[in-house]
């Protein structure tokens, strides 16, 4: 085994072309990790400005009626791990406004600097490892068995099983080591630059790295199998490109289109907003009708009536609207769960799902954000109505305590992480065995 490790190590790292590619991947990964780190630091600076602005805004508000109308903004803060997945995540620069209006808004801002942040797909550590790492592994898988003449020569020195098995193990050992060291090195470097990761985030990153390595092994074995399938022909590069394109772009895109099609079954968000608006306007109409019937009602009585209507609103219409929103959110969750289950089917589609969740900017991060918004909104409504109709405060008290208006999304692994890992391992094992069986059939006819 040591001889194989030594030989394959020299074969991989002794080749200038491969070394150039490895340096290229390392530099690009480092550059995009550094760029992610810059963005993370920029976000932290902007977060401070955001908190200051929100505090200032509340102090400028004259009464609770205004406060209810303006509300306050809620900022979505991704996990620090997001710096490795800055373009591979689902959500980007998300915020919400919590006010007394019926609609819940989740928006992405493009104002000012943020307009120039959009960098397109794959331009982060996760993307570079995925696109260029897969290309590289497919190529090295293609080179592994060299040619039937070479295999015939080698099998006169040892059995094909031994050569095939140990060559794969030795090459994968070096390649896995490279990608693991690259990931861990960058992870340590960003920590040296002051980013602090929690224990859970460290675990998530390590498990993400484990999946990355397994997925790249799968691509390597696919490259090896494809070479055998096309009988080591030199026109291999067309098939090579097709296989790479299908795995890296086509299947993940098909998965995305599929989840979009599933989401078509969801009711339109506008329809839900409209329903909520109708419920609210029904109550407003009742109040308006009451004032029409009793135009001479004294001001304090109107105020009492307003309070009564507000309590009625909280106990009926608001609850109804909240349940509508919760139901809608659970429907979205069902689509997400379906998408997660579907993405497990193929390692590259699962990789996309995993990077989203590991960054904290994934689908489940969105669900958490929505839950947080609804909880906060609930409390805000109680606060707002109590302050507006019951208290006689002249100065508007801020609802937001400390930094409640920052939602800290957590990095997580999908629930199906181990299943996804197992699927990738099974694919790899099948390709490995199939590759051996086919190469044996080609050599020993």
């Amino acid at each position, binding site marked *: 085994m040591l001889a194989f490790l*030594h030989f394959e190590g020299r074969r991989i790292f002794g080749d200038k072309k491969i070394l150039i590619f490895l340096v290229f991947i390392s530099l690009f990964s480092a550059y995009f990790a550094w760029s992610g780190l810059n963005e993370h630091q920029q976000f932290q600076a902007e977060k401070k400005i955001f908190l200051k602005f929100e505090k200032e805004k509340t102090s400028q508000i004259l009464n609770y009626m205004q406060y209810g109308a303006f509300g306050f903004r809620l900022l979505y803060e991704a996990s620090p791990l997001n710096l490795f997945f800055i373009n591979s995540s689902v959500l980007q620069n998300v915020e919400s406004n919590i006010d007394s209006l019926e609609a819940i808004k989740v928006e992405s801002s493009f104002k000012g600097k943020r307009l120039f942040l959009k960098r397109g797909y794959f331009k982060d550590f996760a993307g570079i490892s995925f696109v260029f790492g897969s290309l590289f592994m497919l190529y090295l898988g293609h080179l592994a068995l060299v040619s039937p003449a070479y295999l015939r020569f080698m099998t006169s020195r040892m059995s094909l099983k031994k050569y095939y098995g140990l060559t794969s193990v030795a090459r994968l050992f070096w390649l896995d080591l490279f990608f693991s060291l690259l990931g861990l090195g960058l992870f340590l470097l960003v920590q040296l630059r002051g980013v602090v990761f929690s224990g859970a985030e460290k675990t998530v990153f390590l498990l993400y790295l484990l999946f990355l390595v397994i997925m790249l092994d799968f691509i390597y074995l696919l490259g090896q199998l494809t070479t055998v399938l096309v009988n080591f022909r030199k026109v291999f590069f067309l098939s090579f490109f097709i296989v790479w394109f299908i795995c890296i772009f086509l299947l993940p895109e098909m998965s995305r289109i599929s989840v979009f099609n599933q989401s078509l079954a969801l009711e339109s968000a506008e329809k839900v907003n409209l329903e909520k608006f109708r419920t609210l306007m029904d109550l407003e109409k009742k109040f308006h009708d009451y004032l029409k019937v009793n135009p001479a009602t004294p001001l304090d009585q109107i105020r009492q009536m307003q309070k009564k209507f507000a309590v009625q609103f909280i106990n009926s219409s608001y609850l109804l609207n909240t349940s509508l929103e919760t139901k809608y959110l659970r429907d979205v969750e069902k689509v997400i769960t379906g998408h997660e289950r579907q993405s497990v089917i193929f390692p590259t589609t699962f990789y996309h799902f995993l990077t989203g969740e590991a960054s904290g900017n994934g689908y489940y991060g969105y669900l958490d954000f929505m839950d947080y918004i609804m909880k906060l909104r609930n409390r805000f409504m109680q606060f707002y109505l109590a302050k507006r109709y019951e208290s006689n405060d002249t100065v508007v008290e801020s609802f937001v305590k400390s930094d409640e208006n920052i939602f800290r999304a957590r990095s997580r692994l999908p629930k199906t992480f181990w299943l996804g890992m197992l699927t990738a391992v099974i694919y790899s094992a099948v390709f490995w065995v199939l590759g051996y069986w086919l190469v044996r059939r080609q050599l020993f006819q």
Partner: protein
Amino acid sequence: MIALKNLTFEKGDFFLSDLSLEVASGEIYFLLNRLDQVNNFLFRAMGGFQSAGSGKIAYDGVPLVGAERPPNTVFIDRIGDCADFDADARLGHWLDFLCAQGLSRKNIYKTLLVGNFHERQLKKMVRDLTPETFKLAYLAFCFAVDSGNVVINDFIRGAGKNFELKFNKLLLQKKAAGRSILFLGNDIFYASEIADRVGFIKNGRLMFEAASADLKDMDIKDLYLKFLN
């Protein structure tokens, strides 16, 4: 000793019918055949890479069964250039690896020295070697195993005279050491030069066998036109 008995196969346009021959210890037998496909097939069948249609292949009296590599036999295939091998590896790395797999470094150097091989070639990438240096290295790796039988498939085709002479020297050394050598090819002039016995295959049959010494009295051109054209 190498023995083929009633070997028969058919594949597409080419076939071999009822081939029987024996190569004794210390003998070079040159089997001449115009079709490369038949030589390749025979070479692979003898190496255990291809199942023969019917008949028997035996080395030192031990028959070859199914898809297995025959023991105590060295197979030297025709190699066009290094492109079929790992051209991006260094020759020295290849040498170290094969030695770690049990090949004798001493035996390898013994062969390399016959070919005036310089050690600096070991540092070169396989793709940067001249075709003859690559062939010499390949030959050295093959001959590193001291086997009783040697089967060669048209190895010197395309090689220069200089390399041919070095190869002949090695072959004669093996012959002197009592090895049975079966050479498959289509070069009648080379066969008459190196072999002890020559067999001619035409239309899938072994048509004619002669001792090399007898060939000298025959009209080689006539034999060529008769069997190899």
